């Protein structure tokens, strides 16, 4: 987003606060719209929604510029929006249209915009971890002062790539922030069942890097912890594991019955603990944004999402020739 960051979230500028709220709302409304359209059968393929986890992607990306890279997951829409991907291009991609960010060839699980430092949503769990340290290596070798952020799930922390990547980032002091979105589940398995560790951030100790666990529903907490981690990375002080405790509001994928979820926990996550409601309270309490500001942004975002849907529906499908283009750069 921008380079101006404040150590304390309550001291953030009005511009930053507005940007953050806009992005959080964009993610929420985008995902809710995709959920509804998918239910009507108008979106093909597999879709994994990010709603509920907005504070993580936005709180982290608030500290990044287009030159910084992020790697993402199958649940990538939120990361894309927070990193500045175009909403029309994203929605059109999910609709499989020629105007999509990947010309309709990738779909929901592969949205990317390298020009924004968004190295792609990813269909392979754990794949983003080594990819992120590669971007960190580029920054280090080229001495650019850029950083790389790896968003990954609690489920992915059980994959070997997590340990390979964190260890290498540590020994080479790479400017990488490993942001674990611990939403308590990997598909239909709980974090408690699948992981022996209590906290993903505990691995930081073993690998001798910085590590912290924060309330991932609290934008301010994520924003502050990420700000420090990014600063350390830019200063050559090496990687961080930032674990954000969060929750996904929808199922693992669209169509999931979610029988494994606890009803009370689900209810709390979408009411008292809702990341957007909590951020609204925060900005009002600290008099950064007013109720009118919030409503104004809500309306702007609503219009933008409606426009993205209209744009997508009216866009053409890719032409026949696209099946075999882009396999190689040169033939």
């Amino acid at each position, binding site marked *: 987003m921008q380079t101006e960051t404040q150590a304390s979230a309550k001291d953030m500028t009005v511009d930053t606060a507005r940007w953050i709220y806009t992005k959080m709302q964009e993610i929420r409304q985008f995902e809710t719209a995709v959920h509804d359209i998918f239910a009507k059968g108008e979106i093909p393929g597999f879709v994994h929604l990010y709603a509920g986890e907005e504070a993580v992607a936005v709180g982290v990306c608030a500290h990044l510029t287009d030159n910084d890279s992020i790697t993402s997951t199958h649940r990538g829409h939120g990361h894309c929006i927070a990193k500045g991907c175009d909403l029309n291009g994203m929605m059109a991609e999910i609709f499989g*249209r020629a105007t999509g960010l990947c010309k*309709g*060839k990738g779909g929901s699980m592969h949205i990317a915009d390298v020009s924004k430092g968004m190295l792609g949503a990813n*269909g392979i769990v754990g794949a983003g971890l080594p990819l992120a340290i590669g971007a960190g290596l580029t920054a280090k070798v080229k001495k650019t002062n850029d950083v790389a952020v790896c968003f990954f799930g609690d489920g992915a922390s059980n*994959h070997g790539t997590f340990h390979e990547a964190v260890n290498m980032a540590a020994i080479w002091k790479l400017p990488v922030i490993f942001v674990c979105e611990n939403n308590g589940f990997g598909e239909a*398995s*709980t974090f408690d069942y*699948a992981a022996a560790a209590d906290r993903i951030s505990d691995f930081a100790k073993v690998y001798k890097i910085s590590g912290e666990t924060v309330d991932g529903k609290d934008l301010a907490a994520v924003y502050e912890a990420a700000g420090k981690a990014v600063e350390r990375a830019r200063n050559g002080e090496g990687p961080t594991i930032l674990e954000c405790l969060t929750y996904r509001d929808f199922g693992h994928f669209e169509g999931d019955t979610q029988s494994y979820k606890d009803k009370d926990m689900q209810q709390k996550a979408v009411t008292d603990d809702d990341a957007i409601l909590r951020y609204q309270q925060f900005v009002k309490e600290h008099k950064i944004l007013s109720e009118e500001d919030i409503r104004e942004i809500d309306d702007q975002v609503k219009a933008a999402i409606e426009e993205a849907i209209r744009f997508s529906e009216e866009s053409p499908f890719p032409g026949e020739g696209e099946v075999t283009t882009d*396999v190689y750069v040169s033939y």
Partner: protein
Amino acid sequence: MAVKMSYSDAINDAIRLAMRKDESVILIGEDVAGGAEVDHLQDQGAWGGVFGVTKGIVEEFGRDRVIDTPIAESGYMGAAVSAAATGLRPISELMFNDFIGSCLDEVMNQAAKFHYMFGGKAKVPLTIRTIDGAGFNAAAQHSQSLYALFTHIPGLKVVVPSNPYDMKGLLLNAIFDDDPVIVFEDKTLYGMKGEVGEGFYTIPFGKAEITRAGKDLTIVGIGKQVHTAMKAADQLAKKGFEAEVIDPRTLSPLDEDTIINSVKKTGRLIIVDEAYPRCSAATDIAAIVGDKAFDYLDAPIKRVTAPHAPVPFSPPLEKLYMPSPEKILAAFSVMVGDKVFSAV
């Protein structure tokens, strides 16, 4: 006695029969039950696999034998390999075959090679079940058909069932085979209904099925492409050409004789395969027939395959990407050089 059931239910049925028959059979993989240690589920499964194929199995056999794993393919696949070598008969589920990147070593260098490297003194009775196939708009990393990758490797057996009856018999054969076997489940076939034998039966590997007899052309279809071949054969029949359609059922071992004998009769061969064309099952079969039945061929062998490109997401592109009866007819018209026919 035959019963009607889906491809998906045939898999479920085969696994249950095997687990009832032999206590050393276990089912292991990501969310093969789902919901492990979730209090309110009281040890009921949550998913039974991502497409619900193994639903209900944990309720019958318990979590000691139906094991949900962390997302750690190299970990649990390696465990399944050595569990097989030390006395179990694991059915290990690799959710999508595209995830083989995370555990290829365990399959290619461990499971496939133990028996040979150890001078025939170890065996790995492991069955890997995995999902393949395009047609669901699941994009480049969830739609591949990678059976050729495994066919390439000595020591692995490769099974590509095209219908519920074959699925059940071949899967049971895989489970009780003493070699590592990988069984491909085409995701678009899960809902396909068909007659399935009741109770326990096996179908031996290396025995192709002639799904339609004919004298003018041989069409070999791999996996679900047998059905595309059958549709093309129907259309060809209307034009006066009788195609023989062959479902090899297993790619390793491959029933070369059935294919070659058919080509000797028809003089023409088309292979239909939705996988990438290079170094593929289609290319392999073409080479074998070129080698062993060249003198009987009246026309060049044609392959109707995916192009040399990843699977595209956008529905119209994916449709263009796949083999179709029209593409088979177009290939045939080139083979017979028939101008009238090429109007189709």
